[in-house]
Structures are given as structure tokens and as C-alpha cells.
């Protein structure tokens, strides 16, 4: 057979080139026809095989939810109970408690004490968003805290303003603000059944926080505190200076201020021979006992679950390479209004290391029960499109960032000419009013964000409409006029303004791509600035570079997103408005911060306006008079509105939250951000899964 073919090929005498064109091309033409036919047939066949059905389902979210004019969410979006301290079983008259079938089995087998003994003396009753749920089901997530929020002493309210009781029955702050007395609820238990008491807070404070190996430099405000145990459920933090905002601080991060003493003391150098600990650490592959202790503290080593007790709704059950499994905590101290112990969901799987695109695709096809953190605003249409399969719905929450992109010109930049220009308030105002915020809102945020100046979030008690509207209008002519007045004119006629000495005015803005749509925004903003003759070159840099260049005062300009702008964090760290922090996200005034921190020893003395702000801040931080605090906070923000230390773009931006149609009790609206710890204020422990059909 081969021979015949070879002969035929060799029939024409001479080189192959003498074959007729058709003879050589015939095969090619046949091949192309064949391929096209095959592809068409395959497509036809596949479409026959699987046409995904459109599933109708009852939508929970309003496609165009109402927003207050200032961009905040109307408070009636959440149950009124959520704004008040949670009630307890005795107040509700609940006497009988129930538990999940999964736990009931264990109780019947005698492996677990009955539910009444596991719950605290007077359990916390959670008011669910929609109603009482059903036990059971396995959820799929990519961030564990979305269903397993931190349990702090206090909890942040749904509008990110006040702190309401949680594990602590009360937190009393003394009149001089120097003593915070915390009263824990009676009978709280760790997930292994051991009592959760003041001693655990004391243990954390003495042996973790004050241990110089574990915490070499101790952050405020605990660094100047003492922890004093009064009795099993009462303890105090005593501070050297007044701490008017200690309640907010405890609501935000106090889940970190406790550690299970009975468990961790077997792994701590204060209780175990250093030699022995080191040997244990070496055996597991750690370089020192510190690494070993932190892994015990975190409850995991490589693939091993170390069983460290927790107080959260779920505890880690198993670890595989790509999935961590969490299971309900049988000692969780909260119940629903019918006296059934929370959480409702049996367990959830957390899928790790997902590529961003894969994650988006999985969320958009309903394969993830609930996710928000790593979903992009620009993908909202994609998530909406995927809803036709009936597996998920896209809720639009609002990011707490007062501005999604916050522009910073370094007021202490090394170049003296640029520094002079940046320090001229006319320059900052001109650049602010040259930005067409409505265009940014329409193009990037589907018109669902709020154009505003950099200031606090709209739900803050310090908020004033004037702060948000200051120089946030669009007026390129006025901007041109201001810049001309400064002497920054185009001397060469190339459409770019020059420095006063005739040299070209070029500003380099270095930035790090993280969270929020920064690149898209900057494309528009730089175009707006080009229109008034200001040329800003963008340079995207890595995280390491952002850190070293920002802290080292090497930047001309940078940007970030304006988090820490709610009453929870603005009060303790107003980093955008007062020169107090020198870190990778703030490069507004590194040398002024140094001056403030060193009490004027080093750095550079700030301009009078900034010194004034610092004076207000010193008083604000310690004042125990709420009226005075409000006044000072507003003064600090007023100075920002006047001076524009930072320039805002649009804020309270839409944040997609993709929620399975089976997952209930999830509020359709909410604030999303570090300030309120994402899902924590929205009672994620009461979310439940409907039965699969």
C-alpha cells in the first residue's frame, strides 16, 4: 500500500516543483473543507447535547436599591433589633434549647454533654434577617471568615457606627477614660468545652502580647495598658492615658486579645522548658519555638489540625492541599429566637489558592456559596448574566471606602520645586476640580458609586455634606485659572505646563494594584489632568517597592483606597487627615510624621495648617467629652476639606456579593470593608442553607 503511494508520488520526473499547482493544493483545499465541516458539526452536536435551562427564582435583592443622597444605605435595610444590644434567652423567655441533628447524635452516644450544659448560662439570642433557619448542609467558600466571622467582646453595628455587646455583657469606661472594665457573659466555653474566662485574656496579655519574643514591638493601645483580673468573668484594662475610643477598638479587633490558656500553656516558653520546646519545634521543621507557638496558636501545622480551641461558629476540621474543612462549634454560645443553637450550617469547605479568573468563573456559575472579597466591581455584569442558571444571586453591597481611589501628592517630596508646587493649596484644589467624577462613576461603577471628596464615610457621626462636596465639582476652567495664577504656565506651547523655571513639569505617580479598580480610575484621571496641562506618568510598582519607597519618602505621588474612614477606625487612626502614620499606604507627608513621632527631634516641621491639625488630634485622641470630640473630629475633617491633603474620587462603591440562592438570611444590602470586618455586623452565624431539591 505504501509502495503504491510512493510510486505515484515519484511519477513526475524532476524536482517536486514541477508538480502542477493544483496537484499540490488539492490536499490543502480538501483539508480546509474537512476542518470547517468538522467544527460546524461538533458545535451543532454540542448545542444539541446541552442547552442550559433558564431557571426562574424569586429574587431577594432590589435591582436598583435606594441610596441616601450622601451614598449611605438607609438604616431600614436591616432589622431594628440589629441596632440594639442582642437580647438573651431569659429576656425572650426561652427555656428549652435545641441543637443540630449532627450534635444530637453525639449527645446520644454520650460523646458530648447535652446542649443546656454546652450553652452559657443565658445564651445570646440572634435575630435572623429573614427568619428561623434549617439545620444542615455544606457550604463552599474561598475565605473562611465570610461564614466564620471573628467573635469580639463587642460587635460593630450594621451601619458601622456604634459598638454593641457581644461576648462581653458590658464594657464600662471610667470617667477619666483610663480604665475599661469588661464583664464577660457567664458560662462561655471554648470549642473543647473548657470555660472561656478572664484568665484567657490575661494569658494573652501577659504571655503573648508582653512576651518580647512573640511581640517585639507592642502596638497601641494595649502597649500602655495593664490587664487586671477581677474575677472569673470580669477584668480590666488600665491605661496610662485616656482612651475615649476603646469600645470601638475592642469591637474591631479584640478577638485577638484572648488565647486559650489551658491549651497554649503546654506550648509556651513560660510554662515548658525552652530546650524541650525547641526540640519539638525542630521536629516539626520550625526554626525556633516562636514559629512553633504561632502555628499552635493558629491551630494548624502543614496538613495537621492541632485542635486549638476557638470561640467562633466554626472550627477547623481537616486540611488538604486545596481544601480546608470547617465544622460547627458545638459550644457556640448563641441561639435563634426559638432557642435553637447556632450556627445552622453543618460545615463548610474553603477552597484555597484559586486563580482570580477561575474564582470569578466559579462565582459566576454559582459554584461558590458566598463570596465578595475577591470579586471585582467590573465583573458585576458577568455575575448578573450567570444568574439565569438559578444557582446564585448577586447582591450589591457598598464598600466602606470613603473613596475608592485616594490621590496623594507628597508634601515633603525631595524635589524642592515639586514640593513648593504640591504645598500650594491652589494646586491640589485645581487637580481635584479637574477630575470628572461623574464620568468615573458612570464608566467604572455603572453610576452606582458616590462622587465625593476624601473625607469620612457618609454613615459617620463626624460626616458633613460640606466635607464630601468640597472641591468635588467639575470645573476645568477654574482649574486652569488656578494653575495659571500659580505661575505654572505652558511656556513651550506643547500643551504641557512648565515649572516656573521653564523646565517641563512631570509628576510620577507610583501605585500598587490592590483591591479597588485603581488602574481604570487612573486612566480617566490622568486624561482629565492632561486636559488642564498637567502630565502625570503612572508607574505600577510591586508591593515591596511600594513599601520601601513610601516609607523612605522617595515618592512624588501615590494612591490608595480610603479605608479607615468610619467611626470605628477614623477615631483611632485618622491616617489620611493627620500626619501620624508612615507606612506603605500613606505618602502624603512622611517627614512631618517623623517630626510628630519624634517630638520634633527629627524630620521636618509641618506647615502651620498641619501643625494645627496635629494639635487638634492630640486633644481628640484623649478627650473624654463626647461633644468636644465631635467638634475636634469635625475640625480635622474641615481642615481636610479646606486643604485637600488627599484628593478623593468616588466612594461607597458597589461591591458584588455573590450569594447562592440556597443561602438565606443574608441581608441584601450591607457595608463591605475592613472597618467593620466584612460580614461580622450582619450575623453570618445565622445564615442557613435551604435543602437541595
Amino acid at each position: 500500500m505504501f509502495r503504491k503511494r510512493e510510486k505515484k508520488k515519484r511519477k513526475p520526473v524532476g524536482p517536486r516543483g514541477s508538480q502542477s499547482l493544483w496537484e499540490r493544493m488539492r490536499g490543502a483545499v480538501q483539508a480546509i473543507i474537512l476542518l470547517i465541516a468538522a467544527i460546524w458539526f461538533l458545535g451543532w452536536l454540542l448545542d444539541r447535547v446541552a442547552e442550559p435551562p433558564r431557571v426562574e427564582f424569586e429574587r431577594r435583592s432590589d435591582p436598583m436599591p435606594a441610596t441616601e443622597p450622601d451614598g449611605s444605605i438607609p438604616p431600614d435595610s436591616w432589622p431594628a433589633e440589629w441596632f440594639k444590644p442582642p437580647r438573651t434567652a431569659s429576656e425572650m423567655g426561652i427555656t428549652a434549647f435545641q441543637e443540630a441533628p449532627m450534635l444530637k447524635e453525639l449527645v446520644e452516644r454520650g460523646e458530648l454533654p447535652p446542649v443546656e450544659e454546652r450553652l452559657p448560662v443565658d445564651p445570646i439570642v440572634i435575630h435572623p434577617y429573614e427568619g428561623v433557619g434549617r439545620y444542615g448542609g455544606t457550604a463552599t467558600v474561598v475565605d473562611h471568615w465570610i461564614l466564620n466571622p471573628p467573635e469580639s467582646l463587642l460587635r460593630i453595628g450594621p451601619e458601622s457606627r456604634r459598638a454593641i455587646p457581644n461576648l462581653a455583657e458590658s464594657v464600662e469606661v471610667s470617667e477619666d477614660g483610663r480604665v475599661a472594665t469588661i464583664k464577660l457573659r457567664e458560662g462561655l466555653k471554648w470549642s473543647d468545652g473548657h470555660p472561656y474566662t478572664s484568665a484567657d485574656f490575661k494569658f494573652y496579655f501577659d504571655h503573648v502580647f508582653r512576651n518580647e519574643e512573640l511581640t517585639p514591638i507592642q502596638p497601641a493601645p494595649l502597649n500602655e495598658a495593664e490587664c487586671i483580673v477581677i474575677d472569673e468573668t470580669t477584668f480590666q484594662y488600665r491605661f496610662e492615658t485616656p482612651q475615649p475610643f476603646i469600645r470601638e477598638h475592642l469591637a474591631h479587633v479584640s478577638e485577638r486579645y484572648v488565647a486559650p490558656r489551658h491549651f497554649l500553656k503546654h506550648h509556651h516558653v513560660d510554662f515548658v522548658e525552652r530546650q524541650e520546646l525547641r526540640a519539638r519545634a525542630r521536629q516539626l521543621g520550625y526554626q525556633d519555638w516562636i514559629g512553633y507557638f504561632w502555628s499552635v496558636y493558629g491551630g494548624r501545622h502543614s496538613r495537621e489540625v492541632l485542635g486549638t480551641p476557638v470561640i467562633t461558629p466554626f472550627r477547623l476540621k481537616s486540611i488538604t492541599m486545596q481544601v480546608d474543612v470547617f465544622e460547627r462549634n458545638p459550644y457556640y454560645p448563641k441561639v435563634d429566637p426559638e432557642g435553637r443553637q447556632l450556627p445552622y450550617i453543618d460545615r463548610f469547605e474553603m477552597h484555597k489558592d484559586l486563580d482570580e479568573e477561575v474564582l470569578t468563573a466559579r462565582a459566576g456559575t454559582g459554584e461558590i456559596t458566598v463570596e465578595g472579597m475577591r470579586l471585582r466591581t467590573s465583573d458585576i455584569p458577568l455575575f448578573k448574566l450567570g444568574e439565569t442558571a438559578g444557582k446564585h444571586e448577586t447582591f450589591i453591597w457598598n464598600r466602606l471606602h470613603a473613596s475608592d481611589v485616594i490621590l496623594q501628592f507628597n508634601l515633603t517630596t525631595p524635589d524642592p520645586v515639586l514640593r513648593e508646587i504640591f504645598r500650594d493649596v491652589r494646586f491640589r484644589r485645581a487637580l481635584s476640580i479637574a477630575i470628572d467624577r461623574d464620568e468615573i462613576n458612570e464608566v467604572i461603577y455603572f453610576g452606582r458609586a458616590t462622587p465625593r471628596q476624601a473625607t469620612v464615610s457618609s454613615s459617620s457621626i463626624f460626616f458633613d455634606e460640606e466635607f464630601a462636596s468640597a472641591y468635588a465639582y467639575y470645573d476645568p476652567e477654574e482649574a486652569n485659572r488656578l494653575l495659571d495664577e500659580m505661575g505654572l504656565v505652558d511656556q513651550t506651547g506643547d500643551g504641557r505646563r512648565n515649572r516656573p523655571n521653564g523646565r517641563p513639569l512631570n509628576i510620577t505617580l507610583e501605585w500598587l494594584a490592590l483591591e479597588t479598580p485603581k488602574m481604570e480610575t487612573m486612566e480617566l484621571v490622568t486624561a482629565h489632568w492632561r486636559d488642564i496641562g498637567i502630565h502625570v506618568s503612572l508607574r505600577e510598582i510591586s508591593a515591596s517597592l511600594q513599601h520601601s519607597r513610601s516609607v523612605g519618602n522617595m515618592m512624588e505621588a501615590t494612591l490608595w483606597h480610603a479605608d479607615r474612614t468610619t467611626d470605628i477606625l477614623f477615631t483611632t487612626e485618622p491616617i489620611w487627615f493627620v500626619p501620624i502614620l508612615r507606612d506603605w499606604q500613606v505618602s502624603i507627608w512622611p517627614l512631618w510624621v517623623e517630626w510628630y513621632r519624634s517630638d520634633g527631634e527629627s524630620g521636618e516641621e509641618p506647615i502651620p495648617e498641619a501643625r494645627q491639625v496635629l494639635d487638634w488630634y492630640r486633644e481628640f485622641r484623649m478627650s473624654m467629652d463626647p461633644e468636644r470630640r465631635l467638634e475636634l473630629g469635625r475640625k480635622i475633617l474641615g481642615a481636610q476639606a479646606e486643604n485637600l491633603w488627599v484628593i478623593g474620587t468616588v466612594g461607597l462603591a458597589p461591591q458584588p456579593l455573590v450569594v447562592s440562592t440556597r443561602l438565606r438570611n443574608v441581608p441584601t444590602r450591607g457595608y463591605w470593608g475592613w472597618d467593620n470586618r466584612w460580614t461580622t455586623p450582619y450575623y453570618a452565624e445565622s445564615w442557613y442553607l435551604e435543602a437541595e431539591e
Partner: protein
Amino acid sequence: MVHFILRRLMVMIPTLVAISMLVFFLIQLPPGDAITSRLAELHAEGAEVSEAQIAALRARFHLDDPMPVQYFRWVTGFLRGDFGYSIVQEQPVNVLVYDRLGYTVLIAISCVLFTWVIGFPIGFYSAIRQYSASDYTFTIIAFLGMATPNFLLALGLMYLGHRYFGTTIGGLFSPEYMGEPFSFGKFVDLLKHLWIPMVVVGMAGTAGLVRVMRANLLDELQKPYVVTARAKGVGSLRLIFKYPVRIAINPFISTIGWMLPMIFSGDAIVGVVLNLPTIGPLLLSSLMTQDMFLAGSLIMIMSTLTVLGTLISDLALAALDPRIRYD
């Protein structure tokens, strides 16, 4: 031959030492270090990071020691089989590599098999049926395969797999099997997902293989010795297999050694796109975060495998091609 192997092994030592120095210093050249990358990660998870924690981390990983001291500590660990400690992931490198090695090798070997099983016969067939419709069909597919970026193919196949066969997007297992121990059902599930990386990673290789095989074989088929053999009446198939094919596969034998590092690391980009638990994505992320011990150790392992692979290639080539002698 023993002498030859020994000499080659001796030369490997200075080569590897030079590579290790180069790797260690190159990774640290860009500004910043693993700690700052770690911060980015912590921040992305919502944690608040202070200067204090940075100082603590730097001290714990001895990052403030002079460079030669750090290098020496790392290299001597290597000799004991201790590949160091990943700063960003807070785990020993050994654990991280061991975790992923199985799947990496599984995927790589199935890709190589796919490439060979598909590529050789097609290349062979194309060559002896030059300019036929089937030759053109395979040629077009091969060119498409070479020209399409792997990750694009991966995205396309993932879409098709999800749209028409309902497979999970990315990964090697369906969610219901992910946390489970290995079972027959899990194995079947693995096969359902394995075809995508196999086709994606294998596609470019297959296409290249087809083209090279076809060209080499065509060259040989024109040679006078083939004509002579044919004239003497040697059977066509037997003739082709006995002489031209043996010479045509020489280039493959000489590159067989390169497969070793490939089998170890897998394809990084495809691994990332398809969310595969392989070493490729680990290497990529370690380089991006300047996780120097992890990246350095992975590159060192791959370099060692490359050097070893070259030796294996040379030996195999010498065994197969009588024209090559040890000297």
C-alpha cells in the same frame, strides 16, 4: 563509559555551586524582600501590619544577617536535604514540594504520553503521505496548536468542559471529592478533570513533535540509501522503521533529558489558570513574592535535574546512534 559518567558527574559539582550562588543573589537583587510581600498578603487578608511585626519577622528569618552568611546557611541545609523555609507560606519547603510532587509528576507524565502517542504516529503519517488531504489537516491543526497560547486554550477548554460536561472550573477534583480520601470514585473524577491539562499542556508539544518528525523523516526519505534499499526490494514499512525513523528521532532523544525539570515543575501558567496543585504555580508565586528560600530551592532542584537530564540524554543518544562515541 563508567569513566565518562564519572567525569561528567565531577563537572556537575562546580556547575551547581555556580548556579546556586547566581540563583541566591539574583533573587535578592530587586528591592524589597519576602517580608514586604508577606505584608501585602497579610493586608489582603485584612490583617493590620505594623512596623513591629516587620521587625519581628526579619529577625526570625535572619534577614538582617550579611548575605554570605545567609547563603551559607541555605546551601549547607541543602546538603542535609533541608531545603529551607518558605517565609511567605510559613512552611518548610520540603513539605510544600512533597505535597505537590505527586500531581505534578502525574500530569507531566500523562502529558508526555499524550504528546508521544499522538505526535509520533501523526508526524510519521504526514511524512509518508506528504501533500495529501490528511497531511494538510494535521498540518493546520499542528500550526494552530503551536500558535495558540496554552492559557487561552486552557480557558477555552475549561469553558467547554463546564458548559457541556458540567465539570468544575479548574482543579483536579469535583468539590464533593476534594476533602475525601482516595477512592475509585475519586479516581474516575480525577480522570474527568485530567484531560484538560493533558490536552492543554500536551497540545503545543504534540504540534511541535508532528512538525519535527515530519520534517526529519522527509529529509531522510529523500536520501540515496533509502532509494537503494527500496531498489533492492526491502519492504516499504520495514525499511522506513528500520533506518529513516531511527535517525529522525535523534533530536527527541537528545532533548529527552530536558523533560526531567519539566516533569518536576509542570507548566506554571497553565497550572495557575487551571488551578492545578502542581509545583509550577508555586515557583511562580515564590518568585513574585521574592520568597527566596522557596524560589531558590525550587530553581536549584530544577537545575540539578537539567544537568542530570543532559547526561541521560547523552547516554541514550550514544546507545541509540552508533555514529556517536564516548571520548
